[in-house]
């Protein structure tokens, strides 16, 4: 039969390229490729011509030239004599810092709000609806600017913390919320792996002098943190000025006196490693309990053991390192010690988290609603209790719906962190895409690198998401 219905063999005619569906797609593709190629070559030749006309070349050498500007928040060592590349790296780390902090807080907020919005409690669900709709329908930029204005104009100045009747620090005299930012305690170690410096007899003397100078230099007074490293280390100069008030910063570290507790990256790496090991240990214990349950039908109580597996090594390490809290204290004109979280970071972090949290709340709500009621009823019919039903039946199915849009919200948050420009937070757009471009005049290279950074980050995260997606996908026949 098949041989009869075969079309008669005929020679190839040129008109088949257009009228025969077998060849037409090839024609269209070739035409499209030629058009796109022409467009690209036109753009590239224009760029080359324009660059020649301006007397510029295409060169990434500027990355190894000294930057010459200060960055007010640095997670790694940086000063204005280091290269533009290093400055970009500082910016990248700042972007990642606010992105990670934002993702964590947004998830917490979003999950709470999403669950509460499904609550039977009328007032609570309405209130959450107001939060979600309010944040979803107003531009993020407005929230960032608003929170920044709130922080800088409505909070007490450090001076107000002096005396009895002024403002007071919260959480056991350890956190100070001022109009210059939030001061929180820092964990420091007297036997730090990075080595400790020995204090000068009067370490206090240098600090007030330094901060006085900085205060006179700029509007945003710079504060000096004697013990940085763990969280956010603040630099010396104010937000915009390049290179001022550098002197006197390292004056306090001389011979004699007692050990200054400090912290280095190694300490935190060690603590992180111990935590991960503890987590793995707890998992092993849980798996062993499941094995015993499958073999004998009885599940041994492992929760206290699991908690101990995480906590005991951590406490041992903290004691071995000699950990202590370094609380911020009111110095001359400002707070000393602890970690200074700048207003720009706080405003960006809170606004990003609240805004993205509203979107995540809707995702969580949708995910839980997507699981049909029959699943719950079936679980109850099997005799499972509500808690077990949630853990074993509802959540695994809901997570499959929730995780992909959740990760794309994380991506959005990371990209939205480029709004840092509104509050002067020194993220990668402000360093590499802002000051570096202005100083070197290399817009093309700078924007290209900036775009590449965001692109690679996005592709990495969505790649991970795809792997996860295919691992939890419903195994259909």
């Amino acid at each position: 039969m098949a041989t009869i219905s075969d079309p008669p063999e005929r020679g190839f005619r040129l008109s088949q390229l257009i009228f025969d569906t077998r060849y037409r797609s090839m024609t269209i593709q070739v035409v499209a490729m030629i058009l796109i190629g022409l467009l690209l070559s036109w753009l590239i030749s224009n760029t080359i011509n324009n660059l020649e006309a301006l007397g510029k070349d295409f060169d990434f050498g500027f990355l190894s030239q000294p930057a010459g500007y200060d960055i007010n928040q640095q997670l790694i060592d940086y000063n204005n004599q280091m290269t533009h590349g290093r400055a970009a790296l500082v910016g990248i780390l700042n972007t990642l810092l606010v992105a990670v902090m934002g993702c964590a807080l947004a998830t917490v907020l979003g999950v709470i709000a999403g669950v509460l919005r499904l609550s039977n409690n009328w007032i609570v669900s309405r209130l959450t609806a107001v939060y979600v709709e309010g944040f979803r329908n107003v531009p993020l930029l407005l929230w960032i600017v608003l929170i920044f204005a709130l922080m800088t104009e409505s909070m007490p100045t450090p001076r107000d913390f002096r005396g009895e009747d002024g403002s007071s620090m919260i959480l056991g005299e350890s956190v100070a919320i001022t109009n210059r930012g939030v001061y929180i305690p820092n964990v420091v170690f007297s036997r730090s792996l990075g080595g400790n410096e020995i204090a000068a007899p009067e370490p206090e003397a240098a600090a007030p002098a330094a901060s006085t100078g900085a205060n006179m230099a700029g509007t945003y007074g710079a504060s000096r943190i004697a013990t940085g490293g763990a969280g956010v280390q603040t630099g010396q100069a104010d937000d915009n000025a390049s290179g001022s008030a550098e002197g006197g910063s390292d004056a306090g570290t001389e011979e004699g006196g007692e050990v200054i507790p400090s912290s280095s990256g190694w300490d935190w790496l060690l603590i992180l490693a111990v935590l991960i090991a503890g987590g793995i240990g707890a998992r092993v214990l849980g798996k062993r309990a499941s094995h015993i349950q499958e073999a004998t039908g009885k599940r041994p109580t492992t929760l206290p053991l699991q908690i101990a597996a995480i906590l005991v090594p951590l406490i041992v390490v903290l004691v071995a390192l000699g950990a202590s809290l370094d609380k911020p204290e009111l110095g001359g004109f400002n707070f000393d010690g602890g970690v200074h979280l700048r207003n720009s970071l706080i405003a960006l972090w809170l606004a990003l988290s609240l805004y993205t949290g509203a979107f995540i709340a809707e995702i969580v709500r949708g995910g839980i609603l997507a699981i049909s009621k029959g699943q719950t009823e079936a679980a109850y019919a099997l005799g499972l209790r509500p808690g077990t039903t949630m853990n074993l039946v509802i959540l695994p199915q809901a997570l499959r719906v929730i995780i992909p849009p959740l990760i794309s919200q994380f991506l959005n948050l990371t990209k939205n962190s480029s709004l840092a420009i509104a509050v002067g937070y020194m993220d990668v757009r402000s360093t590499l895409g802002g000051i570096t471009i202005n100083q070197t005049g290399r817009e093309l290279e700078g924007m290209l690198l900036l775009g590449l950074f965001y692109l690679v980050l996005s592709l990495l995260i969505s790649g991970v998401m795809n792997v996860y997606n295919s691992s939890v996908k419903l195994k259909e026949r």
Partner: protein
Amino acid sequence: MSDTHAQTVAYVRDTMLDQQDPPLNQTGALKWIRENLFSGWLNIMLTLLSLWVIYAALSHLLPWALRGIWDASNLSQCREIIAERYGAGTPAACWAVLAERWPQLIFGFFPKELYWRPILAFLIFLAAVAPVLFSSVPRKMLWVSALAPFVLFWLIWGGSLWGPVAAILGFVIAWAIMAFAAPKIGTLLSVILAIVVPVIYWLTLCGPLAGALASVVPLALEQVPTQNMGGFMLATIIGVSGIVLSLPLGILLALGRQSDMFIINKCSVAFIEIIRGVPLIVWLFTASLLLNYFLPPGTNFDLMLRVIIMVTLFSAAYIAEVVRGGLAALPKGQYEAADALGLDYWKSMRLIILPQALKISIPGIVNTFIGLFKDTTLVVFIGLLDPIGLSNSIRATTDWNGVYWELFVFIGLCFFIFCFSMGRYSLFLEKKLRREHR
């Protein structure tokens, strides 16, 4: 057996009881409150916490807003009036800043005597979108929608009337070719001609023709440069043009990404991923800093136009992903049924696939539009005066230095009304188009 029955009868009531009211705590408001607000200790705590939050928010906001001063010429005068009326240090809003500056927040620096033009344009815009949004509006109104872009452009930017008219002529030429030439020379050739001839016309003849017409019958409005536009007018212009242009582009990109043709598919994927992977701010800076590198030397065009192009491309990539989800959600049988009917690609897409796919993706598309409208605030970073930029410049004047809550509340409320109504419209549309489970 009848004996036993006779004995049991004694226990059976032989008169009916009157219908009783349900117990008081099982009905009405009391039951509702018990079940909804105080059903367990967790719920009681949540209720009390929410009540406290509501009280705290309202007790600060309401007096502040209601005490507000509406007539003052600057902040210090406003504060004096507050001190005089309520005593010093009482929190009260200075709505006077809005009363004085609202034209600026809405129109930017558009000339005062020409305010009628954007207002008329807005009314025409409403008339033009009505038939698109609501099917109960007479279909003839669609002609208004078709002509509106040209009229709106003319009203807002001004200039000679003949420019838009000459531009419309290009579309008329395309229509004429499709209507009259297609039966004679075949569909394919006429489609190509209908694209090529108007483009040649716009590039060569259009300008001189408009000039000639203008010299014969000078009909012109005063021209307003883009730098003078700002505030919500600017946000609406960018937002609406972005929305109108990005939907068709996004659908094309989604079709490209679904296509079997290797090159088209890969180009669409690359375009969508590159655009989506980079924040809008970076694209806007690219538009303002780099676009001159990519164009022939000496080309320079309006910053607002660049922004509209960038915003359109950006949201088209997002819409493409949303529509792709809708296309993927359709059962394969729909594609096969369209093929079995003998429809070609474009017909099957237009008549079978896209209507269903777009219906599925309405919520996502509207969310993208809401996002686009909110993102128009980002143009402040490349020097256009959107509402937030204007609020900054108002706060920088000596009169109103220190006002911020009032401006933010106003701007936030305006955006909220716009975006919230878009969201509600999408819910309405979803309900109207729902065909199953009715």
